[in-house]
Structures are given as structure tokens and as C-alpha cells.
């Protein structure tokens, strides 16, 4: 799309674009290209010689049963975070949008966790669920439950899922609220006059009209669970115990930085790129459709 009226200037547009293009080329295109290049090469331990190995790195990564476990953890983690945070946010948004006293105060009180860093959210959760010092952690133990997420993989996964979802509820809440406010009151009132109860109104009117928002959030939350939760996991469990909470992005970091396996780490990066590009493509198709609605 282009405006009808524009300025005529030969040099200026390029000057205006220069800073953005420079930063993009140096810190974006170049590293991404490097990742692709490295993913099909094998480097010796000193990084002096490298050899073109086709898809050997990918083969290694994808046939490693360890990697498949990581993939499984990632899927469980992402789906759980997405469902939990969206479900909770939708419930709270529907209630905060209804005509009740103090709706404004509730909104403010529910929005602020958006501002927390995922890693800080993890620290807050640690203060509560730590088996030695946390109030809930100690309470669980005193109830006779063998609670220690540092030793028990299942509990650790549960911990990072809860901490990551807890933070994301606020973001989803804002979007659901905006979506709800866009639904014309008259539609709801007409349905109420026709005798539809609140639950029926929600499922036949509100929920379908919210579907574009829901879909958008689905993609955003998946991307959040894939990438931004690195801080949550790193702060809470370091991917452990064992590899119970190691997600794909954690493994890229671990293999690349700690194990210094550049080929393997790059191959994993490329796999992740493909996943994000697919997710983004889906999102754009949806946004285009949504523009039609409006």
C-alpha cells in the first residue's frame, strides 16, 4: 500500500532508512545467516577449521532421544501455559467487564503483573514454594506431601508452568478486555430480552465474537512460552532436575554457551526459526482476515 501524494527526494529516504537498515543487517540478518551457515558445518574444537556436512547436525539433533524429550517438555509446557493463562484471563476479563462495582479497581489490580520480568516472577514464586523457606512449600510439607521441586521432575515442571502462566494472565486479560468492550451492548441486550441466560449468552455470542482475539493470543502465548520463559526456567530450575524442565530455547543456550557445541546449537536455532516463522505466518493470515472484518 502506498499514499497517493508523496515527497520527491532522491537521497533523503535512503538517509532516513540508513540507521534501521544498518542495525538490521549487522545484528539481525548477519547472525541469522551465520546460524544457517553453521548449522550445515562441523567445526573443530578450536573453531579453526570447519567442514561442510550437509544435514548431519540436524540428523544428530533430531535423532537424539534427549532432544525429543526436550521437545516433549516444550510442548507440554507451552500448551499448559497457553491454556492456563488464557482460561484464567478470560474468566477474569468477563467478570471485570460485567456491570459490577469497583470494576476499574479490579482492572488496575489485575493488569500490573504485565510489568514483571519473567525471571522476577520466578523469584517471587520461589519465595512461596521453596521447600525450605516458602510459606506454601512448608505448608505442603507439613501436610505430609513430599514437596521439593528441586528433586522431583514432575513438581518442577508444574512449578515453571504455574510461574510462567501467572505472569502471562495480565497480558491476555488486557486483550480479552479490549475484545469484550468491542462487542456492541445492544447485541447482548437483545439476547437477554430473548431470554438467554448469562452462560448461554457467553457461549453463543461473546465467545464467537472473541475468536479473533483468542486466536491472536494463542499465537502470542505460544511464542511467549517458547522464548520469553527462558528467564522463568533459568531462575527457578536451571532446566532440572535431570532435564525435566528443559525447553528448546533452554537447550539452545545450554548446548551453545555451556557445552560449546556450535553446529548442534545452530541446527537447533534453525529449527526454532522455522517454528516461529510458521507461527508468524499463521498470525499474519489471521490479521489480514481481521482487517476485512473491520
Amino acid at each position, binding site marked *: 500500500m502506498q499514499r497517493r501524494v*508523496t*515527497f520527491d*527526494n532522491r537521497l*533523503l*529516504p*535512503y538517509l532516513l*532508512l540508513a*540507521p*534501521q*537498515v544498518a*542495525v*538490521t543487517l*549487522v*545484528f*539481525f*540478518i548477519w*547472525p*541469522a545467516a551465520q*546460524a544457517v551457515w*553453521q548449522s550445515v558445518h562441523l567445526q573443530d574444537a578450536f573453531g579453526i577449521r570447519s567442514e561442510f556436512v550437509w544435514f548431519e547436525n540436524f540428523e544428530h539433533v533430531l535423532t537424539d532421544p534427549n532432544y525429543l524429550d526436550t521437545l516433549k517438555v516444550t510442548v507440554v509446557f507451552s500448551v499448559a501455559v497457553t491454556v492456563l493463562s488464557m482460561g484464567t484471563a478470560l474468566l*477474569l476479563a468477563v*467478570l471485570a467487564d460485567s456491570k459490577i*462495582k469497583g470494576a476499574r479497581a*479490579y482492572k*488496575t489490580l*489485575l493488569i*500490573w*503483573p*504485565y510489568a*514483571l520480568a519473567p*525471571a*522476577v516472577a520466578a*523469584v*517471587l514464586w520461589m*519465595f512461596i514454594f*521453596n521447600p*525450605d*523457606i516458602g*510459606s506454601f512449600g*512448608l505448608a505442603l510439607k507439613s501436610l505430609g506431601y513430599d514437596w521439593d521441586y*528441586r528433586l522431583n521432575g514432575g513438581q518442577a515442571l508444574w512449578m515453571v508452568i504455574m510461574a510462567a502462566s*501467572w505472569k502471562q*494472565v495480565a497480558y491476555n486479560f*488486557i486483550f480479552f478486555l*479490549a475484545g469484550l468492550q468491542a462487542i456492541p451492548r445492544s447485541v447482548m441486550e437483545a439476547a437477554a430480552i430473548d431470554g438467554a441466560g448469562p452462560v448461554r449468552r457467553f457461549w453463543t455470542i461473546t465467545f464467537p465474537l472473541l475468536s479473533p482475539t483468542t486466536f491472536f493470543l494463542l499465537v*502470542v502465548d505460544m511464542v511467549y512460552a517458547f*522464548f520469553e520463559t*527462558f*528467564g522463568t526456567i*533459568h*531462575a527457578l530450575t536451571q532446566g532440572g532436575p535431570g532435564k525435566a524442565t528443559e525447553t528448546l530455547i533452554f537447550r*539452545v*543456550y545450554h548446548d*551453545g*554457551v555451556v557445552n560449546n557445541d556450535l553446529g548442534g546449537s*545452530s541446527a537447533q*536455532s534453525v529449527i526454532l*526459526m522455522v517454528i*516461529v*516463522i510458521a507461527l508468524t505466518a499463521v498470525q499474519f493470515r489471521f490479521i489480514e482476515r481481521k482487517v476485512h472484518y473491520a
Partner: protein
Amino acid sequence: MKPTRFIDLVPHIVLIVGVLVFAYPIYVTLIGSTWDSGTIGRGGLPLWPGGEGVDNYAQAWAGEAGARAKYTPVRTMMLNSLIMALAIALGKIAISILSAYAVAFFRFPLRMAFFWLIFITLMLPVEVRIIPTYKVVADLGLINTYAGLAVPLIASATATLLFRQFFLTIPDELLEAAKIDGAGPVRFFIDVVLPLSRTNIAALFVILFIYGWNQYLWPLLVTSSGDMETIVTGITKMIGTGESANDWNLIMATTVLAMLPPVAVVVFMQRWFVKGLVDSEK
């Protein structure tokens, strides 16, 4: 007046439970920051404030040695986080508004090629290309510098797309009138486009500031010296292995300080922030 039925209270009960679930961890941290590390470490943290608050905050702020280890002072980490967040927010807004202006208001060869070059950056968060980006920054000698912390995170397209979208809604008549009055592209940008974009800039600033302040993986890689530590990565380094023998009082005080700036920004600028989020859908 109708008597209040129980069913009318249900939304309030659910919302209050929701608010409590979000507030409780913060409350515990606030309370914890006013007790000594021994009380917290034994798991005996009371539900009311203790008397060590001033000491704890002063100690964390100045970075005096805790009972067990020496830490980077919070004032240093806060300053680093602040510089990083401001550089990311202002840098991204500045380069984005300029490039969006070029793409929207000029016709020139390769315009769409540039647009797509910027556009594809949407798809790859820094986490995905973390190792090669680190290598580029290392080769440029930018490890442990503010430029290394901020510039690679400036390179993404969300803000450019948002500004372009907004610029396309500026009516052609405005531009024609300006041209008739003899205003060039620079004048038009300063006198018309910038003032019109005020709200978008404010909203974006809030979002980007929080984004910058909350970065974790990137600062973890790019800074190795304590002097360059940001507060979000600094806290988790204080925790170490999560054992009961940590200086929990200092960690809790640091956590409170780390939360303050972004939460304050969201609470005070809620209107702009919500508008910005919903408009840009990012």
C-alpha cells in the same frame, strides 16, 4: 432496594481471589524485605513487617557484603537497567519513526525491498539467533558495554510497522497543504508528523521500556563483569542454588526494587499503555 443475592457476589469473590493470587507473592516479598535473613532462612517468615527494613534496603542499595557474599550494589544494577531500557526504548522509536516516514511518504527505487528487509525481523526474536548474535557483538568488541546490551535489541520491526500503519492514515490533503505552503519533508516531519504521533510514541515508550528493563537471556550472555550487571539477571545470581543459606533479606529487598520502575510505569501510564498494546497487537 433489592436484597443482595449470593449469585451477585460470585463475580466479586472470583475477582478478589484473582487479585489475591497476584498480590500474595508481592506481599510476601515486601514483608520479607523487612526481616533478617535468619528468620527467613528458617522458614519462619511472619505475615507482618519486621524492623530490619531500612537496614536491608540500605545494604542492598550500597552493595555492602551480606552475611555470606558480596553483591553488585543495587544502585549500579538499577542504573545499568535504566540505561539499557531507555536506550532500547528511545533508540527503537527514533530509528523506527524515521524509517517508517521514509517508507510511507516517499517513492523511491527498492522501497518495497527495504520494507521487507525490515519486516522479516518480526519473525526472529533475539533468543532464536542468540549464539551467532553474541558472536557478532563479541567480534565488534561490544561485550560488557551499554551498546552491546541495547543495540542488538533495537533491531526489530514492530515499532516501524506500527508507525507506518499510522502514517498511512494521515490524510493526503494535509500533505498537499503543507507542500503548497512550501514545507519540505523535514519541516513536515517536525511540524506535523511528530506532534500527531505523540500518543503512539508515548504508548510505545511504555511498552519498550518494560521490554528493555525485563530482558534476561541477552544481558546474561553479554555482561560478564559485575559492574555491567542488570538488576533482573543480578537477582537470580544472588540466589545461586536456591538454598536456605542465601541472604534472603537482601534478595527480597532487591526484588522489590527491581519491580518498582516497570510496575510504576504501567500503573501510572495505564491508559497509554493499554492503548498502545491493543493498537499494535504486540
